């Protein structure tokens, strides 16, 4: 009797273990399916049009079968780079503030604020950008306001939480002895931060930057609302431009046939960027764990 009871328990245990295992394998299946479906829907058309014409083409005119996304590659790259240039220093210094400089009561205000920034929907950022940042840029430069610059400003705020959170964690992970050693050698607190702690937290900070790049390059709605979405090649930061993500989101709802396939192809290029970032991230994490 007792044996049978235990046998039943053992079998249920095995069944559930397999259910648990299957659920966790689902993440792998989902990832493979996403990659597979997007590539399957986009790659053939991309090869049809010609990869050089697609990536290097200066004109995107679906009505004339012209599918060049070079201006959008430039658009995505420039706004992402701009957001990193502005967002990373501010983010790192804010993390330094939280981990090293701030009195406890101030950190208790700043940290939740930064976390809240992460929770604000991207469409709100876009809306705010459209009604506040765009007019400010317009009144300063008289260019209409919707521009790469507007997107850069909005994106640099949007990536802040990622940079701050990860940098703070990695600064806190630096052994206390590093800082104490630097202080004992006569360094000031600020010197210890910039010459010892930040270099020691390097790989964590880099991970934060890579995640920030991913967030900026993948952002869609906020960018659409502030960037003007012109398909022309931007010649300055004050010009309108379009990112790859915006291209997909703007045209997907009415595109058909080859046009639609080329939007999937745009998605393939975006995915390639993201997967490269993911591998860099994996390497950085391994490097940290090896230490």
């Amino acid at each position, binding site marked *: 009797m007792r044996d049978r009871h235990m046998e039943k328990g053992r079998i249920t245990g095995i069944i559930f273990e397999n259910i648990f295992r299957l659920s966790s394998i689902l993440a792998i299946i989902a990832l493979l399916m996403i990659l597979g*479906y997007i590539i399957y829907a986009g790659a053939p058309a991309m090869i049809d049009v010609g990869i050089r014409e697609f990536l290097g083409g200066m004109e995107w005119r679906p009505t004339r079968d012209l599918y060049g996304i070079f201006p959008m590659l430039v658009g995505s790259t420039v706004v992402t780079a701009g957001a990193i240039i502005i967002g990373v220093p501010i983010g790192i210094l804010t993390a330094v503030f939280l981990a090293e400089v701030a009195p406890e009561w101030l950190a208790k205000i700043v940290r939740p604020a930064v976390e*809240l920034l992460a929770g604000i929907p991207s469409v*709100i950022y876009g809306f705010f950008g459209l009604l506040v940042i765009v007019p400010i840029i317009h009144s300063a430069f008289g260019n209409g306001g919707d521009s790469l610059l507007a997107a850069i400003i909005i994106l640099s705020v949007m990536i802040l939480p990622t940079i701050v959170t990860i940098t703070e964690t990695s600064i806190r992970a630096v052994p206390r002895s590093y800082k104490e050693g630097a202080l004992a050698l006569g360094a*000031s607190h600020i010197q210890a931060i910039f010459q010892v702690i930040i270099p020691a937290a390097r790989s964590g900070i880099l991970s934060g930057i890579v995640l920030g790049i991913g967030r900026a390059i993948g952002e869609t709605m906020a960018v659409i609302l502030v960037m003007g979405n012109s398909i022309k090649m931007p010649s300055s930061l004050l010009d309108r431009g379009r990112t790859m993500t915006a291209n997909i989101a703007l045209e997907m709802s009415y595109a058909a046939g080859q046009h639609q396939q080329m939007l999937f192809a745009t998605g393939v290029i975006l995915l390639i960027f993201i997967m490269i970032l993911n591998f860099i991230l994996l390497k950085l994490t391994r490097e940290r764990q090896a230490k």
Partner: protein
Amino acid sequence: MSRHTKDSILKGVIYLCAFLCVAVLFWLIGYVVISGLPHLSFDFLIKDYHPDNTGGIFPMVVTTLYLIGTSLLIATPLGICSAIYLTEYAKQGRLVSIIRFATESLSGIPSIIYGLFGMLFFVTTLKMGFSIMAGAATVSIMILPTIIRTTEEAIKAVPVGYREGSLALGATKLRTLVRVVIPSALPGIVTAVLLSVGRVIGETAAIYLPVGTHYKLPTSVMSSGRTLSVHLYILAKEGISFEMAFATGTVLILTILVINFLTRLVEKKLSVGGR
């Protein structure tokens, strides 16, 4: 420049950056809420929307709630099961590192790609049509990494003694999990759910492709619909009624604030209960 002045300047810059982060947040929230509150009323929440931009946002509220409910129903059990596997069963090895790489990659994929996938797979291949269901299936994949990670941390935080005590009393591993580990990890799981709700409410790009932008009240999860975020996007893009856009934006921000507050509350409870 003396070391002291240099240090003071750097310290000033550090303070400035932190101030900037907080200031931007207040500016953003303040701007939208102050412009939106005058147009906000209870009527606005329960009235039907008319395409000439009058009325309220009732259909959008309902669509958003449907979407949240359905995606949580799909993702929460899956996420909890995976977290259990990763923390309680899996041995460190190839499979686990692939699973971790997969979940991390999933959280890095841009939402517009999810939208494309949802449209291709759930809407077209599985023939769900443009529907809340297709959108929910899409966003469940998006929120899965968050649920897994947060639940994992909660399970890891359950003291070993609880487990050992239960096992010593003769309970099986499964019984220990169900009766001891999961209940102790519950606040963490609630946090995971709250974070996911916030994510679903704020998502736009991944939702409007599989769900569509239909502005009428959805009759079931198989109908198309327009969530609050998508609604705000359309209002802002068309630029017809900024009053309505501000009011919708205010509803979104207030909801996010409430969720954020609840998350904090649960986390506080977690840290008190855990020690």
